[in-house]
């Protein structure tokens, strides 16, 4: 579904990604874990066409053939079903919850379809439904995360990139969010690429996982394999694992 081939990205004079190769197969959950500043967010930004690639190729399997991400404007990638739920949620705090959701389906001009999508998000997260006319900025952190995911679902993603969905959330809320994401994948077949600091949790649900450090991929394998690999456990999962 998504593929990076030896991709390098430079910001200013620093090379923030160094020949990163990874694959996100259709219908699977992939995870990208690693310490702060390892290049995980940069990788997602590159995948959604927001950063220029200095070397290598980034490819998206679109509904009508392969798309070269470097040569496609960001809005066309969204139209092809590549949806990015960014770090820090980035909801539109001054707009209402309903407006946030409508923005998620911005490219969808079928009003009836947008209405149906909206209702399905509300049934997934009833707490949003209760406050649909309220300003998104008044929601709690967990509710804002639900809104961010709901907004992403409005776009009917084929592949969903999620940047730190658990950041700053209480464990019970995190668990609820993860359950929702896994259900999305299993029931609706949405391909997921999950970036997480909470590596344990991500690896447990991931079919395939990559570990990043200093702008490179340093380990890869299935989620289970990485959970059992000693070098990964000591470096990224702490001694408690």
């Amino acid at each position, binding site marked *: 579904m998504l593929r990076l081939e030896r991709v390098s990205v430079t910001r200013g004079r620093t090379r923030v990604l160094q020949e990163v190769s990874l694959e996100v197969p259709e219908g699977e959950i992939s995870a990208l874990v690693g310490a702060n500043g390892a290049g995980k967010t940069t990788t997602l930004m590159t995948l959604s066409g*927001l950063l220029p690639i200095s070397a290598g190729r980034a490819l998206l399997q679109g509904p009508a053939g392969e798309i070269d991400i470097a040569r496609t404007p960001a*809005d066309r990638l*969204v139209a092809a079903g590549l949806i990015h739920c960014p770090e820090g949620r*980035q909801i539109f705090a*001054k707009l209402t919850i309903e407006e946030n959701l409508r*923005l998620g389906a911005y*490219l969808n001009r079928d009003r009836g379809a947008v209405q149906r999508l909206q209702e399905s998000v509300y049934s997934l997260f009833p707490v949003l439904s209760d406050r649909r006319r309220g300003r998104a900025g008044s929601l709690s952190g967990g509710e804002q995360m639900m809104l961010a995911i709901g*907004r992403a679902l409005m776009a009917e993603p084929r592949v969903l990139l999620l940047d730190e969905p658990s950041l700053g959330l209480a464990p019970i809320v995190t668990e609820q969010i993860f359950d929702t994401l896994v259900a999305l994948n299993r029931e609706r077949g949405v391909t997921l690429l999950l970036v997480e600091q909470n590596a344990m949790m991500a690896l447990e649900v991931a079919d395939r996982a990559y570990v990043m450090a200093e702008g490179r991929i340093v380990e890869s394998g299935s989620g289970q394999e990485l959970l059992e690999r000693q070098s990964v456990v000591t470096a990224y999962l702490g001694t408690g694992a």
Partner: protein
Amino acid sequence: MSSYVIQQLVNGLTLGSLYALVAVGFSLIYGVIRLVNFAHGDLMMIGAFVTLGLVGTGYVPWVLIPLLVLLAGFLAGGTIERLAFRSLRNAPMITGFIVTLAVSVALQNLGILVLGGQPRNFLFPDIFRARVELGFAQVAVIDLVIPAVTLLLAIALGLLVKQSRLGLAMRALSENLLAAQLMGISANRAVLAAFGLGGALAAIAGLFWGGKYGQIDPLMGLVPGLKAFVATIIGGVGSLAGAVVGGYILGLAEVAFVGFTPPSWSGYRDGFVFVLMILILLVRPQGLFGRDEEERA
């Protein structure tokens, strides 16, 4: 109230309308891309001369002229954005700011080159100068038309921003460029629309300016443009309602200053406008309708 006071009130509302029409564009453009466009006032000049040109042909009926002026303003605003500002989208703020000054000076000098530096008499149908009896006072038709059209246009713009898909995209861009792009919103199109809409309103203000004051010249946009920017600041930059209210406050205050102080003071009217701005900002630094930036979490 004496008829003198009523006439001053009417003049204030008319002048305020002109400021409001220009101020709304400042606010709209700033709201969408955080750019203070100092070339914005010069679109008034373009609107005024387009009107003069259309009237001069003698073929275009008067009912069509305002519509054509709106269209010309939209195209002029959009063209300026496309040619001068699009390539600066990711440049530091100060670069964009300097370029708007450069575009302003270029437009004024282009105007002088093409149209000559002398003021021209503005051709306007006599019907607008006719005075109507309102019971308590006599008022010129144009003094009724200007505020009425201004309010209609302001309401239309407000509805567009609040209700339409384009308006939603503009508000999203205004709040969070990155997230808006992730929604599939093309920043270029929304920014172009903001410049176009702002340009259309400024151009119609130019038509009104000529109709009200009778003379136009290539530099006519400079001072009113600056004052409209003051109106934007008074109202709170980025707020459309604030820009309209700021425009009327400024127009009424300026006319009151000229009308109710000794005649020898009237030369200080421009200075008074800026003093007023400073006083308001001392009390409300974010403007009357502005929100604290901190609120955006």
